[in-house]
């Protein structure tokens, strides 16, 4: 078995509306894959089909060689829904103990899981008193139960502060290192950029781009921006040497195509002492995302 999750030519229709059209993808063990897309692009629908919560209209999905929703698949998959709110009358510990029992694990593991997500102190308080970020941590704790082979996480870091997000991704790194596959959707593009192996961009139910961040950058061929800071008084010299550069707040901004990047860098290096500092800004994930989404829409 090479891949944990394998989807081929998956389609889903709601009446006349095509929610997913011919989506194919695979996720290998230990791989962290981010699913990006607008609201309504089909991310949640895709996740629900993977979980077996709704049937597909066409195509094939297998999770660890099992059909979605089958007992074997359900045992292998952990899920964190978007905006989940547990019963306010239960404590965090009671809720996790229940989920442990449902997976056939010992309820005594609950405290360890809650400490792992930073809820050790609040474990005996009712979930009704928790903040949104704390409820999200309860959700994460239940997703860690029983060493799942595949984690399906719908907007897992919404409601978490930046420090908690970093801790959360550190947890995911550990899981991935142990061979778990992770499929997550997120709106926070910057964090996905640093923390996932592969990115899938979904637009109107179609997979418009797939690859590592550098793959996507190369394929999109968006211009690279460079900021050159001149030593005192040399700005006009540099501007002459770099046609197309614009002076903004004392620094020269210029853009060039990916293919001209090295040549441009060479020219800047040739200016020697006249250059005080140089910054190279690759196209951001936001730029890539809107590029591929628009391409997909055409």
């Amino acid at each position, binding site marked *: 078995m090479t891949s944990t999750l394998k989807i081929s030519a998956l389609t889903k229709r709601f009446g006349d509306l095509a929610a997913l059209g011919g989506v194919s993808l695979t996720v290998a063990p230990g791989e962290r894959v981010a699913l990006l897309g607008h609201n309504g692009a089909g991310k949640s629908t895709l996740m629900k089909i993977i979980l077996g*919560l709704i049937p597909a209209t066409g195509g094939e999905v297998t999770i660890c060689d099992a059909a979605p929703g089958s007992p074997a698949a359900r045992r292998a*998959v952990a*899920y964190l829904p978007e905006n989940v709110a547990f019963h306010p009358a*239960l404590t965090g510990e*009671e809720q996790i103990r*229940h989920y442990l029992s*449902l997976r056939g694990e010992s309820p005594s593991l609950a405290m360890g899981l809650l400490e792992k997500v930073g809820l050790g102190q609040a474990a005996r308080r*009712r979930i009704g008193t928790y903040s949104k970020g704390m409820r999200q941590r309860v959700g994460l704790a239940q997703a860690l139960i029983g060493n799942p082979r595949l984690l399906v996480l719908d907007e897992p870091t919404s409601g978490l502060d930046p420090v908690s997000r970093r801790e959360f991704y550190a947890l995911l790194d550990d899981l991935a290192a142990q061979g778990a596959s992770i499929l997550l959707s997120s709106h926070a593009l910057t964090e996905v950029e640093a923390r996932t192996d592969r990115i899938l961009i979904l637009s109107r139910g179609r997979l418009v781009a797939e690859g590592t961040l550098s793959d996507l950058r190369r394929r999109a061929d968006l211009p690279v921006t460079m900021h050159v800071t001149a030593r005192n008084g040399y700005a006009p010299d540099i501007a002459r040497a770099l046609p197309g550069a614009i002076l903004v707040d004392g620094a020269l901004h210029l853009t060039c195509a990916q293919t001209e990047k090295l040549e441009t860098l060479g020219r800047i290096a040739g200016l020697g002492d006249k250059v005080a500092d140089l910054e190279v800004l690759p196209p951001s994930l936001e730029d890539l995302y809107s590029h591929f989404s628009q391409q997909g829409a055409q």
Partner: protein
Amino acid sequence: MNRILSTAGTEFRIALRNRWVAIALVLMAVFSLVLSLAGSAPTGGLGVDRLSVTVASLTSLSVYLIPLLALLMSFDAIAGESERGTLSLLLAYPIAREEILLGKLVAHLAILTLAVLLGHGLAAGVAIATDENALAGLPALFRLSWSSVLLGATFLGAGYALSALSRRPSGAAGLAIGLWLGLVVLYDLALLSAIVADNGGWFTTDAFPVALLANPADAFRLFNLTASGATAAAAGVGGAADAIPLWQSLSSVLIWPFAALALAAAAFRKVTP
């Protein structure tokens, strides 16, 4: 099995914290005590022991109270999970939908059983303490107890079905109250007015007994009144108890819980999170 028990434990805890356990126990205890104390009045000339009279009063009370308690506990079962967003999570777990329902049923039925046992225990205590012949009424009380639990199971099932159908707790609550009013209050009124209008015709002789047996609340009342021979103490449609054989009302009492739960399972299977 473990999954069902864990679900039941969690549900019981929630009901305890939401005060449903306290409400059910207090309601049953208070009403049973009031009825058993007030039940002393008609005993004198009837030559019936005191507990048997109390059982007849408790039967009329249970017809209203047990379905109400059952519906109040069950309307949130699926709609609440759906609103909190935990339903899709729960269904992604390795647990069957029937197991979820069974777990909730075990917890809610346990609460109802506790309430029934407490109420009936108090009633028996009062009756036996004040009338030495009251022991003769114990079989009738026992019959009332187990049939009350079955009536509760029927309305729990109906509550789960409504909860699955409506998806929103507010909608489910409305449907539950509607069902209670319809089956427990308005149904009998409609039957009575139909009989008056019919004036001893086909409806009274053929349709009326079937209509009584089709309603789980009426079947419960018929069964208890027929079995204890207390039709003399009954009023309203309960007076028809003589005309319908015991096995028919017993069958209805036994079949309805399973039918209602099958209905709930069917409605829950249709829910897509």
